[in-house]
Protein backbone atom coordinates (compact mmCIF):
# COMPACT_ATOMS: atom_id res chain seq x y z
CA UNK A 1 0.00 0.00 0.00
CA UNK A 2 1.65 3.23 -1.13
CA UNK A 3 1.28 6.27 1.10
CA UNK A 4 1.64 9.90 0.23
CA UNK A 5 1.33 12.99 2.39
CA UNK A 6 1.10 16.28 0.49
CA UNK A 7 1.83 19.65 2.11
CA UNK A 8 0.52 18.54 5.50
CA UNK A 9 0.37 21.18 8.23
CA UNK A 10 -0.87 20.50 11.75
CA UNK A 11 -0.99 22.85 14.73
CA UNK A 12 -1.77 22.10 18.36
CA UNK A 13 -2.67 25.51 19.74
CA UNK A 14 0.44 27.63 19.21
CA UNK A 15 2.67 24.65 18.54
CA UNK A 16 3.40 23.94 14.90
CA UNK A 17 3.75 20.14 14.86
CA UNK A 18 3.91 19.68 11.08
CA UNK A 19 4.96 22.46 8.76
CA UNK A 20 4.14 21.79 5.10
CA UNK A 21 5.33 18.17 5.16
CA UNK A 22 5.32 16.04 2.03
CA UNK A 23 6.55 12.46 1.93
CA UNK A 24 5.88 9.49 -0.25
CA UNK A 25 6.26 5.89 0.86
CA UNK A 26 6.54 3.05 -1.62
CA UNK A 27 4.35 -0.02 -1.32
CA UNK A 28 6.11 -2.82 0.54
CA UNK A 29 8.89 -0.59 1.87
CA UNK A 30 10.17 -0.23 5.42
CA UNK A 31 10.41 3.46 6.21
CA UNK A 32 11.80 5.10 9.34
CA UNK A 33 10.67 8.52 10.56
CA UNK A 34 13.69 9.81 12.45
CA UNK A 35 13.94 12.97 14.49
CA UNK A 36 14.37 14.45 17.95
CA UNK A 37 11.33 14.66 20.25
CA UNK A 38 8.93 17.38 19.15
CA UNK A 39 10.05 17.07 15.53
CA UNK A 40 6.56 16.02 14.39
CA UNK A 41 7.36 12.42 13.47
CA UNK A 42 4.66 10.88 15.72
CA UNK A 43 2.11 13.45 14.55
CA UNK A 44 2.85 12.54 10.93
CA UNK A 45 2.34 8.86 11.76
CA UNK A 46 -0.97 9.67 13.47
CA UNK A 47 -2.07 11.75 10.46
CA UNK A 48 -1.34 8.77 8.20
CA UNK A 49 -3.36 6.51 10.56
CA UNK A 50 -6.27 8.95 10.62
CA UNK A 51 -5.93 9.58 14.37
CA UNK A 52 -5.22 13.26 13.64
CA UNK A 53 -6.75 15.39 10.91
CA UNK A 54 -4.31 17.78 9.23
CA UNK A 55 -5.21 21.47 9.23
CA UNK A 56 -3.90 21.78 5.68
CA UNK A 57 -2.79 19.18 3.15
CA UNK A 58 -3.84 15.76 1.98
CA UNK A 59 -3.09 12.12 2.59
CA UNK A 60 -3.26 9.59 -0.24
CA UNK A 61 -3.53 5.87 0.41
CA UNK A 62 -2.89 3.66 -2.62
CA UNK A 63 -3.31 6.76 -4.77
CA UNK A 64 -6.74 7.62 -3.36
CA UNK A 65 -7.39 10.79 -1.41
CA UNK A 66 -7.99 9.63 2.19
CA UNK A 67 -7.50 12.72 4.35
CA UNK A 68 -10.99 12.51 5.88
CA UNK A 69 -11.29 8.71 5.96
CA UNK A 70 -11.88 7.41 9.50
CA UNK A 71 -9.05 5.35 11.06
CA UNK A 72 -11.40 2.34 11.16
CA UNK A 73 -11.60 2.30 7.37
CA UNK A 74 -7.92 2.75 6.51
CA UNK A 75 -6.82 -0.86 6.89
CA UNK A 76 -3.84 0.07 9.05
CA UNK A 77 -2.27 -1.74 11.96
CA UNK A 78 -0.97 0.69 14.58
CA UNK A 79 1.43 -0.17 17.37
CA UNK A 80 1.42 2.50 20.06
CA UNK A 81 4.46 3.71 21.93
CA UNK A 82 3.28 2.21 25.20
CA UNK A 83 1.50 -0.62 23.36
CA UNK A 84 -1.98 0.42 24.57
CA UNK A 85 -2.93 -3.13 25.58
CA UNK A 86 -6.60 -3.73 26.38
CA UNK A 87 -5.90 -4.24 30.07
CA UNK A 88 -9.14 -6.07 30.92
CA UNK A 89 -8.68 -8.64 28.16
CA UNK A 90 -6.41 -11.65 27.97
CA UNK A 91 -3.56 -11.76 25.47
CA UNK A 92 -5.73 -14.04 23.33
CA UNK A 93 -8.69 -11.63 23.33
CA UNK A 94 -6.40 -8.68 22.64
CA UNK A 95 -5.08 -10.35 19.51
CA UNK A 96 -8.53 -11.60 18.46
CA UNK A 97 -10.14 -8.15 18.86
CA UNK A 98 -9.76 -6.97 15.26
CA UNK A 99 -11.20 -10.24 13.96
CA UNK A 100 -14.02 -10.64 16.48
CA UNK A 101 -15.43 -7.17 15.77
CA UNK A 102 -15.44 -8.14 12.10
CA UNK A 103 -17.56 -11.14 13.12
CA UNK A 104 -15.21 -13.64 11.51
CA UNK A 105 -16.10 -17.31 12.09
CA UNK A 106 -14.84 -18.76 15.39
CA UNK A 107 -12.63 -21.38 13.73
CA UNK A 108 -10.94 -18.74 11.59
CA UNK A 109 -10.26 -16.52 14.62
CA UNK A 110 -8.90 -19.49 16.55
CA UNK A 111 -6.57 -20.48 13.73
CA UNK A 112 -5.35 -16.94 13.13
CA UNK A 113 -4.69 -16.15 16.82
CA UNK A 114 -2.84 -19.45 17.26
CA UNK A 115 -0.72 -18.63 14.22
CA UNK A 116 0.02 -15.10 15.48
CA UNK A 117 0.91 -16.27 18.99
CA UNK A 118 3.40 -18.58 17.34
CA UNK A 119 4.72 -15.82 15.08
CA UNK A 120 5.38 -13.44 18.00
CA UNK A 121 6.67 -16.26 20.20
CA UNK A 122 3.98 -15.97 22.84
CA UNK A 123 2.73 -19.56 22.59
CA UNK A 124 1.06 -20.68 25.79
CA UNK A 125 0.64 -17.13 27.12
CA UNK A 126 -2.80 -16.54 25.55
CA UNK A 127 -4.62 -16.81 28.88
CA UNK A 128 -2.45 -14.21 30.62
CA UNK A 129 -3.38 -10.58 31.08
CA UNK A 130 -1.14 -7.83 29.64
CA UNK A 131 -0.09 -6.85 33.18
CA UNK A 132 1.43 -10.32 33.57
CA UNK A 133 3.76 -9.88 30.57
CA UNK A 134 7.23 -8.35 30.35
CA UNK A 135 7.78 -5.20 28.27
CA UNK A 136 9.10 -7.14 25.29
CA UNK A 137 6.21 -9.63 25.43
CA UNK A 138 3.68 -6.80 25.65
CA UNK A 139 5.31 -5.21 22.62
CA UNK A 140 5.03 -8.44 20.63
CA UNK A 141 1.41 -8.84 21.72
CA UNK A 142 0.69 -5.33 20.42
CA UNK A 143 2.31 -6.28 17.12
CA UNK A 144 0.27 -9.47 16.85
CA UNK A 145 -2.90 -7.52 17.61
CA UNK A 146 -2.07 -4.98 14.90
CA UNK A 147 -1.31 -7.73 12.38
CA UNK A 148 -4.40 -9.87 13.12
CA UNK A 149 -6.74 -8.31 10.59
CA UNK A 150 -4.03 -8.41 7.91
CA UNK A 151 -3.48 -4.67 7.49
CA UNK A 152 -1.85 -3.43 4.30
CA UNK A 153 0.01 -0.81 6.26
CA UNK A 154 1.78 -1.25 9.59
CA UNK A 155 2.53 1.88 11.63
CA UNK A 156 4.76 1.71 14.69
CA UNK A 157 5.25 4.64 17.09
CA UNK A 158 8.63 4.38 18.87
CA UNK A 159 8.13 0.60 18.89
CA UNK A 160 11.23 -0.21 20.91
CA UNK A 161 11.51 2.99 22.91
CA UNK A 162 10.66 1.64 26.34
CA UNK A 163 12.69 -1.57 26.21
CA UNK A 164 16.16 -2.37 27.45
CA UNK A 165 19.05 -2.48 24.99
CA UNK A 166 19.22 -6.26 24.51
CA UNK A 167 15.47 -6.72 23.95
CA UNK A 168 15.48 -3.76 21.55
CA UNK A 169 18.13 -5.39 19.43
CA UNK A 170 16.28 -8.71 19.35
CA UNK A 171 13.01 -7.06 18.41
CA UNK A 172 14.64 -4.98 15.68
CA UNK A 173 16.01 -8.08 14.01
CA UNK A 174 12.70 -9.79 14.49
CA UNK A 175 10.82 -6.86 12.86
CA UNK A 176 13.20 -6.99 9.89
CA UNK A 177 12.56 -10.72 9.43
CA UNK A 178 8.83 -10.18 9.81
CA UNK A 179 8.88 -7.48 7.14
CA UNK A 180 10.86 -9.73 4.79
CA UNK A 181 8.26 -12.47 5.22
CA UNK A 182 5.08 -10.41 5.07
CA UNK A 183 6.00 -7.51 2.76
CA UNK A 184 3.51 -5.26 4.50
CA UNK A 185 4.29 -1.56 3.97
CA UNK A 186 5.76 -0.45 7.29
CA UNK A 187 6.45 2.98 8.74
CA UNK A 188 8.05 3.34 12.14
CA UNK A 189 8.93 6.33 14.26
CA UNK A 190 12.19 6.52 16.19
CA UNK A 191 14.52 9.05 17.75
CA UNK A 192 17.39 6.56 17.64
CA UNK A 193 19.52 7.07 14.52
CA UNK A 194 21.16 3.67 14.86
CA UNK A 195 17.74 2.00 14.90
CA UNK A 196 16.64 3.93 11.81
CA UNK A 197 19.84 3.16 9.90
CA UNK A 198 19.75 -0.51 10.87
CA UNK A 199 16.10 -1.30 10.23
CA UNK A 200 14.75 1.04 7.55
CA UNK A 201 15.36 0.85 3.84
CA UNK A 202 14.40 4.51 3.56
CA UNK A 203 14.71 7.15 6.27
CA UNK A 204 12.79 10.42 6.61
CA UNK A 205 14.71 12.81 8.88
CA UNK A 206 12.46 15.36 10.58
CA UNK A 207 13.20 18.43 12.63
CA UNK A 208 10.89 21.13 14.02
CA UNK A 209 7.93 19.95 11.97
CA UNK A 210 9.79 19.80 8.68
CA UNK A 211 11.39 17.10 6.56
CA UNK A 212 15.16 17.61 6.42
CA UNK A 213 16.07 14.73 4.13
CA UNK A 214 14.62 11.52 2.70
CA UNK A 215 17.22 8.94 1.74
CA UNK A 216 18.33 5.33 2.17
CA UNK A 217 20.49 4.87 5.32
CA UNK A 218 23.83 4.82 3.56
CA UNK A 219 23.17 7.94 1.54
CA UNK A 220 21.90 9.67 4.66
CA UNK A 221 25.12 8.95 6.50
CA UNK A 222 27.52 9.60 3.63
CA UNK A 223 25.73 12.49 1.98
CA UNK A 224 23.74 14.40 4.58
CA UNK A 225 21.69 17.19 3.01
CA UNK A 226 22.45 19.76 5.71
CA UNK A 227 24.25 20.30 9.03
CA UNK A 228 21.22 19.06 11.03
CA UNK A 229 21.18 15.67 9.30
CA UNK A 230 24.98 15.48 9.47
CA UNK A 231 24.94 15.94 13.24
CA UNK A 232 21.77 13.92 13.93
CA UNK A 233 22.51 10.67 12.11
CA UNK A 234 25.89 10.18 13.76
CA UNK A 235 28.55 11.75 15.98
CA UNK A 236 30.44 14.62 14.40
CA UNK A 237 33.37 16.99 15.02
CA UNK A 238 32.97 20.62 14.08
CA UNK A 239 36.30 22.08 12.95
CA UNK A 240 35.81 25.65 11.86
CA UNK A 241 33.66 25.40 8.74
CA UNK A 242 34.23 21.70 8.30
CA UNK A 243 32.27 18.73 9.72
CA UNK A 244 34.15 15.50 10.28
CA UNK A 245 32.96 12.09 11.49
CA UNK A 246 35.06 10.70 14.40
CA UNK A 247 36.13 7.69 12.33
CA UNK A 248 37.37 9.99 9.54
CA UNK A 249 40.22 11.26 11.68
CA UNK A 250 43.55 9.50 11.56
CA UNK A 251 46.03 9.49 14.48
CA UNK A 252 49.76 9.01 13.93
CA UNK A 253 52.86 9.33 16.10
CA UNK A 254 54.88 11.00 13.35
CA UNK A 255 54.19 14.46 12.02
CA UNK A 256 53.47 14.12 8.35
CA UNK A 257 53.83 17.63 7.09
CA UNK A 258 50.10 18.28 6.91
CA UNK A 259 49.03 16.67 10.20
CA UNK A 260 48.37 18.81 13.24
CA UNK A 261 49.66 18.24 16.75
CA UNK A 262 47.22 17.18 19.48
CA UNK A 263 47.29 15.85 23.01
CA UNK A 264 45.39 12.76 24.14
CA UNK A 265 42.98 13.66 26.92
CA UNK A 266 40.95 10.54 27.53
CA UNK A 267 40.62 7.02 26.14
CA UNK A 268 37.41 4.98 26.44
CA UNK A 269 37.46 1.35 25.42
CA UNK A 270 34.05 -0.02 24.39
CA UNK A 271 34.93 -3.51 23.26
CA UNK A 272 35.67 -3.31 19.56
CA UNK A 273 35.41 0.45 19.48
CA UNK A 274 37.90 2.79 21.16
CA UNK A 275 37.04 6.45 21.63
CA UNK A 276 39.85 8.96 21.98
CA UNK A 277 39.31 12.56 23.08
CA UNK A 278 42.03 14.95 21.91
CA UNK A 279 42.87 18.64 22.22
CA UNK A 280 44.56 20.12 19.15
CA UNK A 281 47.38 22.62 19.61
CA UNK A 282 45.01 25.37 18.43
CA UNK A 283 42.66 24.46 21.30
CA UNK A 284 39.99 22.61 19.21
CA UNK A 285 38.63 19.46 20.79
CA UNK A 286 38.34 16.30 18.71
CA UNK A 287 36.54 13.01 19.23
CA UNK A 288 38.10 10.14 17.36
CA UNK A 289 36.80 6.61 16.86
CA UNK A 290 39.33 3.84 16.35
CA UNK A 291 38.99 0.10 16.05
CA UNK A 292 40.60 -1.91 18.81
CA UNK A 293 43.34 -3.06 16.43
CA UNK A 294 44.20 0.48 15.40
CA UNK A 295 44.33 1.54 19.05
CA UNK A 296 46.56 -1.40 19.99
CA UNK A 297 49.04 -0.57 17.24
CA UNK A 298 49.16 3.09 18.38
CA UNK A 299 49.56 2.21 22.09
CA UNK A 300 48.01 5.50 23.15
CA UNK A 301 48.04 6.80 26.70
CA UNK A 302 46.54 9.97 28.18
CA UNK A 303 48.67 13.13 27.73
CA UNK A 304 50.56 11.60 24.74
CA UNK A 305 51.33 14.05 21.98
CA UNK A 306 50.11 12.72 18.62
CA UNK A 307 49.40 14.04 15.12
CA UNK A 308 45.97 14.09 13.52
CA UNK A 309 44.64 14.59 10.04
CA UNK A 310 41.15 14.29 8.64
CA UNK A 311 40.32 11.85 5.86
CA UNK A 312 36.94 13.24 4.81
CA UNK A 313 35.50 16.64 5.65
CA UNK A 314 32.12 18.05 4.82
CA UNK A 315 31.18 21.68 4.40
CA UNK A 316 27.86 23.40 3.97
CA UNK A 317 27.16 26.85 2.50
CA UNK A 318 25.25 29.60 4.31
CA UNK A 319 21.91 28.05 3.18
CA UNK A 320 22.91 24.76 4.79
CA UNK A 321 23.38 23.10 1.42
CA UNK A 322 26.36 20.76 1.03
CA UNK A 323 29.28 22.11 -0.92
CA UNK A 324 31.50 19.55 -2.63
CA UNK A 325 33.44 17.59 -0.01
CA UNK A 326 36.63 19.54 0.59
CA UNK A 327 39.76 17.71 -0.45
CA UNK A 328 41.10 16.15 2.70
CA UNK A 329 44.29 17.48 4.27
CA UNK A 330 46.19 14.77 2.49
CA UNK A 331 45.17 13.49 -0.91
Amino acid sequence: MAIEARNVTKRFGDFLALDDVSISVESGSLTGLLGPSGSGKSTLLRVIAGLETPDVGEVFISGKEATAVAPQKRGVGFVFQHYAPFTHMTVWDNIAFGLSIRRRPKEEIHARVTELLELVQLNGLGKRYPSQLSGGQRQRMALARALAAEPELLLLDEPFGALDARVRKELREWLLRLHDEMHVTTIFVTHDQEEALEVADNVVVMNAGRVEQVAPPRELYDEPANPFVMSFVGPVNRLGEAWVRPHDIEITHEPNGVAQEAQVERIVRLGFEVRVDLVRDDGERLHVQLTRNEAEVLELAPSDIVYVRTRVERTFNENGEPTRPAPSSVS
Partner: protein
Amino acid sequence: MTARRGIRAFSLGYLAIILVAPVGLIFWRAFEHGIHPFWAAISNANAVHALKLTLEITAVVVPLNTAFGILCALAIVRHRIPGMGFVNALVDLPLALSPVVVGLALYLLYGRDGWFGHWLLGHGVQVLFALPSMVLATTFVSLPFVVREVVPVLREIGTQQEEAAATLGASALTTFRRITLPAIRWAVSYGVVLTTARSVGEFGAVSIVSGGIAGRTQTLTQYVQASYENFDQTGAYAASVLLAMLAITTLLLMTVVRRGDRSS
Protein backbone atom coordinates in the same frame (compact mmCIF):
# COMPACT_ATOMS: atom_id res chain seq x y z
CA MET B 1 2.49 4.05 71.07
CA THR B 2 0.44 6.20 73.44
CA ALA B 3 -0.11 8.71 70.65
CA ARG B 4 -1.39 5.99 68.35
CA ARG B 5 -3.60 4.58 71.09
CA GLY B 6 -4.90 8.06 71.79
CA ILE B 7 -5.80 8.62 68.13
CA ARG B 8 -7.58 5.28 68.01
CA ALA B 9 -9.53 5.95 71.19
CA PHE B 10 -10.53 9.39 69.91
CA SER B 11 -11.73 8.18 66.52
CA LEU B 12 -13.62 5.24 67.97
CA GLY B 13 -15.18 7.47 70.62
CA TYR B 14 -16.14 10.05 68.02
CA LEU B 15 -17.75 7.39 65.81
CA ALA B 16 -19.57 5.90 68.80
CA ILE B 17 -21.08 9.22 69.84
CA ILE B 18 -21.82 10.61 66.37
CA LEU B 19 -22.81 7.45 64.49
CA VAL B 20 -23.34 4.32 66.52
CA ALA B 21 -25.31 5.76 69.43
CA PRO B 22 -28.09 7.41 67.38
CA VAL B 23 -28.49 4.51 64.95
CA GLY B 24 -28.29 1.97 67.79
CA LEU B 25 -30.91 3.89 69.71
CA ILE B 26 -33.27 3.76 66.72
CA PHE B 27 -32.90 -0.01 66.52
CA TRP B 28 -33.32 -0.40 70.28
CA ARG B 29 -36.45 1.77 70.38
CA ALA B 30 -37.96 0.00 67.34
CA PHE B 31 -37.54 -3.44 68.89
CA GLU B 32 -38.04 -2.32 72.51
CA HIS B 33 -41.36 -4.17 72.78
CA GLY B 34 -40.42 -7.06 70.52
CA ILE B 35 -40.89 -7.77 66.84
CA HIS B 36 -44.70 -7.51 66.77
CA PRO B 37 -45.13 -3.75 67.25
CA PHE B 38 -42.34 -3.25 64.71
CA TRP B 39 -44.02 -5.52 62.19
CA ALA B 40 -47.41 -3.91 62.76
CA ALA B 41 -45.88 -0.47 62.25
CA ILE B 42 -44.17 -1.24 58.96
CA SER B 43 -47.03 -3.30 57.51
CA ASN B 44 -49.29 -0.28 57.93
CA ALA B 45 -50.70 0.64 54.48
CA ASN B 46 -49.17 4.14 54.48
CA ALA B 47 -45.76 2.83 55.49
CA VAL B 48 -45.84 0.19 52.77
CA HIS B 49 -46.87 2.83 50.22
CA ALA B 50 -44.07 5.16 51.38
CA LEU B 51 -41.49 2.38 51.00
CA LYS B 52 -42.84 1.53 47.54
CA LEU B 53 -42.78 5.18 46.47
CA THR B 54 -39.20 5.62 47.65
CA LEU B 55 -38.10 2.52 45.74
CA GLU B 56 -40.06 3.66 42.65
CA ILE B 57 -38.37 7.07 42.63
CA THR B 58 -34.97 5.42 43.11
CA ALA B 59 -35.67 2.98 40.27
CA VAL B 60 -36.28 5.89 37.89
CA VAL B 61 -33.56 8.22 39.14
CA VAL B 62 -30.64 5.78 39.29
CA PRO B 63 -30.72 4.64 35.63
CA LEU B 64 -31.33 8.24 34.54
CA ASN B 65 -28.35 9.64 36.43
CA THR B 66 -26.16 6.67 35.50
CA ALA B 67 -26.74 7.20 31.78
CA PHE B 68 -26.36 10.96 32.15
CA GLY B 69 -23.29 10.55 34.37
CA ILE B 70 -21.43 8.35 31.89
CA LEU B 71 -22.29 10.59 28.92
CA CYS B 72 -21.41 13.73 30.86
CA ALA B 73 -18.07 12.27 32.03
CA LEU B 74 -17.24 11.26 28.43
CA ALA B 75 -18.11 14.76 27.22
CA ILE B 76 -15.97 16.37 29.94
CA VAL B 77 -12.92 14.14 29.49
CA ARG B 78 -12.94 12.93 25.89
CA HIS B 79 -14.36 15.69 23.77
CA ARG B 80 -12.89 19.12 23.62
CA ILE B 81 -16.30 20.78 23.52
CA PRO B 82 -16.19 24.48 24.37
CA GLY B 83 -17.95 25.17 27.65
CA MET B 84 -17.31 21.70 29.11
CA GLY B 85 -15.17 23.24 31.86
CA PHE B 86 -18.23 25.17 32.98
CA VAL B 87 -20.36 22.00 32.84
CA ASN B 88 -17.73 20.21 34.93
CA ALA B 89 -18.08 22.86 37.63
CA LEU B 90 -21.87 22.96 37.34
CA VAL B 91 -22.16 19.21 38.01
CA ASP B 92 -21.00 19.85 41.58
CA LEU B 93 -23.79 22.34 42.25
CA PRO B 94 -26.14 19.77 43.87
CA LEU B 95 -23.39 18.96 46.40
CA ALA B 96 -23.04 22.60 47.39
CA LEU B 97 -26.66 23.68 47.23
CA SER B 98 -29.04 22.91 50.10
CA PRO B 99 -31.80 20.51 48.99
CA VAL B 100 -34.35 22.92 50.43
CA VAL B 101 -33.26 25.52 47.88
CA VAL B 102 -33.58 22.91 45.12
CA GLY B 103 -37.09 22.08 46.28
CA LEU B 104 -38.07 25.72 46.39
CA ALA B 105 -36.65 26.35 42.90
CA LEU B 106 -38.65 23.43 41.48
CA TYR B 107 -41.73 24.67 43.33
CA LEU B 108 -41.38 28.07 41.67
CA LEU B 109 -40.64 26.58 38.24
CA TYR B 110 -43.46 24.01 38.15
CA GLY B 111 -46.04 25.82 40.31
CA ARG B 112 -49.28 27.19 38.91
CA ASP B 113 -47.58 30.47 37.96
CA GLY B 114 -44.15 29.02 37.19
CA TRP B 115 -42.43 29.19 33.77
CA PHE B 116 -42.96 25.50 33.00
CA GLY B 117 -45.82 24.78 35.41
CA HIS B 118 -48.24 27.17 33.74
CA TRP B 119 -47.76 25.58 30.32
CA LEU B 120 -47.69 22.01 31.64
CA LEU B 121 -50.87 22.46 33.69
CA GLY B 122 -52.50 23.93 30.60
CA HIS B 123 -51.73 20.62 28.88
CA GLY B 124 -53.06 18.59 31.79
CA VAL B 125 -49.71 17.55 33.22
CA GLN B 126 -49.50 17.69 37.00
CA VAL B 127 -45.85 17.91 38.08
CA LEU B 128 -45.97 19.43 41.54
CA PHE B 129 -47.40 17.29 44.40
CA ALA B 130 -46.99 14.22 42.18
CA LEU B 131 -44.36 11.67 41.17
CA PRO B 132 -42.73 13.80 38.40
CA SER B 133 -41.63 16.58 40.77
CA MET B 134 -40.32 14.06 43.31
CA VAL B 135 -38.30 12.34 40.59
CA LEU B 136 -37.00 15.72 39.38
CA ALA B 137 -35.95 16.75 42.89
CA THR B 138 -34.23 13.43 43.60
CA THR B 139 -32.51 13.45 40.18
CA PHE B 140 -31.16 16.92 40.92
CA VAL B 141 -29.68 16.08 44.31
CA SER B 142 -28.15 12.74 43.25
CA LEU B 143 -26.75 13.96 39.92
CA PRO B 144 -23.00 14.38 40.68
CA PHE B 145 -22.09 10.92 41.98
CA VAL B 146 -21.64 8.88 38.78
CA VAL B 147 -19.94 11.80 36.98
CA ARG B 148 -17.53 12.36 39.88
CA GLU B 149 -16.58 8.68 40.07
CA VAL B 150 -16.17 8.18 36.32
CA VAL B 151 -14.28 11.37 35.34
CA PRO B 152 -10.98 10.59 37.15
CA VAL B 153 -10.96 6.98 35.91
CA LEU B 154 -11.53 8.09 32.30
CA ARG B 155 -8.66 10.57 32.68
CA GLU B 156 -6.42 7.87 34.12
CA ILE B 157 -7.03 5.24 31.42
CA GLY B 158 -6.28 7.79 28.68
CA THR B 159 -7.25 7.55 25.03
CA GLN B 160 -4.72 5.07 23.71
CA GLN B 161 -6.81 1.93 24.20
CA GLU B 162 -9.72 3.64 22.44
CA GLU B 163 -7.47 4.79 19.60
CA ALA B 164 -6.05 1.28 19.32
CA ALA B 165 -9.59 -0.11 19.01
CA ALA B 166 -10.37 2.47 16.32
CA THR B 167 -7.33 1.51 14.23
CA LEU B 168 -8.37 -2.14 14.59
CA GLY B 169 -11.67 -1.25 12.93
CA ALA B 170 -14.00 -0.80 15.92
CA SER B 171 -16.83 1.73 15.55
CA ALA B 172 -17.32 4.36 18.26
CA LEU B 173 -20.14 2.29 19.78
CA THR B 174 -18.14 -0.96 19.73
CA THR B 175 -15.17 0.84 21.28
CA PHE B 176 -17.39 2.18 24.05
CA ARG B 177 -19.00 -1.20 24.71
CA ARG B 178 -15.88 -3.37 24.49
CA ILE B 179 -13.11 -1.03 25.71
CA THR B 180 -14.32 2.05 27.59
CA LEU B 181 -17.21 0.58 29.56
CA PRO B 182 -15.25 -2.42 30.93
CA ALA B 183 -12.49 -0.03 31.97
CA ILE B 184 -14.84 2.24 33.93
CA ARG B 185 -17.25 -0.43 35.21
CA TRP B 186 -16.12 -0.29 38.85
CA ALA B 187 -16.30 3.49 38.92
CA VAL B 188 -19.82 3.31 37.45
CA SER B 189 -20.90 0.69 40.01
CA TYR B 190 -19.53 2.79 42.82
CA GLY B 191 -21.34 5.84 41.46
CA VAL B 192 -24.58 3.84 41.18
CA VAL B 193 -24.33 2.75 44.82
CA LEU B 194 -23.78 6.33 45.99
CA THR B 195 -26.65 7.59 43.79
CA THR B 196 -28.95 4.93 45.24
CA ALA B 197 -28.01 5.83 48.82
CA ARG B 198 -28.57 9.52 48.16
CA SER B 199 -31.94 8.89 46.43
CA VAL B 200 -33.30 6.66 49.18
CA GLY B 201 -32.31 9.15 51.89
CA GLU B 202 -33.49 12.32 50.10
CA PHE B 203 -35.76 14.46 52.24
CA GLY B 204 -35.31 18.22 51.90
CA ALA B 205 -36.07 18.89 48.24
CA VAL B 206 -38.77 16.21 47.97
CA SER B 207 -40.60 17.38 51.10
CA ILE B 208 -41.13 20.81 49.48
CA VAL B 209 -42.42 19.60 46.10
CA SER B 210 -44.32 16.44 47.09
CA GLY B 211 -46.92 17.83 49.47
CA GLY B 212 -46.34 14.77 51.63
CA ILE B 213 -49.88 13.36 51.41
CA ALA B 214 -49.93 10.09 53.35
CA GLY B 215 -50.55 7.07 51.14
CA ARG B 216 -50.08 9.18 47.99
CA THR B 217 -47.02 11.43 47.83
CA GLN B 218 -45.21 10.50 51.01
CA THR B 219 -41.74 8.94 50.73
CA LEU B 220 -40.23 6.84 53.49
CA THR B 221 -38.21 9.75 54.93
CA GLN B 222 -41.31 11.91 54.99
CA TYR B 223 -43.25 9.08 56.61
CA VAL B 224 -40.71 9.05 59.45
CA GLN B 225 -41.16 12.76 60.01
CA ALA B 226 -44.97 12.63 59.80
CA SER B 227 -45.20 9.70 62.23
CA TYR B 228 -42.92 11.43 64.69
CA GLU B 229 -44.94 14.66 64.54
CA ASN B 230 -48.13 12.65 65.11
CA PHE B 231 -46.64 11.05 68.26
CA ASP B 232 -46.57 7.64 66.53
CA GLN B 233 -43.10 6.93 67.87
CA THR B 234 -43.16 3.20 67.10
CA GLY B 235 -44.07 3.99 63.49
CA ALA B 236 -41.28 6.55 63.21
CA TYR B 237 -38.69 4.20 64.68
CA ALA B 238 -39.81 1.26 62.57
CA ALA B 239 -39.62 3.27 59.32
CA SER B 240 -36.23 4.62 60.42
CA VAL B 241 -35.00 1.07 60.91
CA LEU B 242 -36.20 0.28 57.40
CA LEU B 243 -34.23 3.25 56.02
CA ALA B 244 -31.21 2.24 58.05
CA MET B 245 -31.42 -1.29 56.68
CA LEU B 246 -31.60 0.03 53.10
CA ALA B 247 -28.50 2.10 53.87
CA ILE B 248 -26.67 -0.88 55.35
CA THR B 249 -27.53 -2.98 52.28
CA THR B 250 -26.10 -0.20 50.11
CA LEU B 251 -22.94 -0.10 52.22
CA LEU B 252 -22.53 -3.86 51.90
CA LEU B 253 -22.92 -3.56 48.12
CA MET B 254 -20.29 -0.84 48.16
CA THR B 255 -17.85 -3.11 49.99
CA VAL B 256 -18.46 -5.84 47.41
CA VAL B 257 -17.86 -3.34 44.59
CA ARG B 258 -14.66 -2.12 46.24
CA ARG B 259 -13.41 -5.66 46.56
CA GLY B 260 -14.11 -6.28 42.87
CA ASP B 261 -12.28 -3.09 42.01
CA ARG B 262 -9.19 -4.16 43.91
CA SER B 263 -9.14 -7.64 42.43
CA SER B 264 -9.34 -6.37 38.84
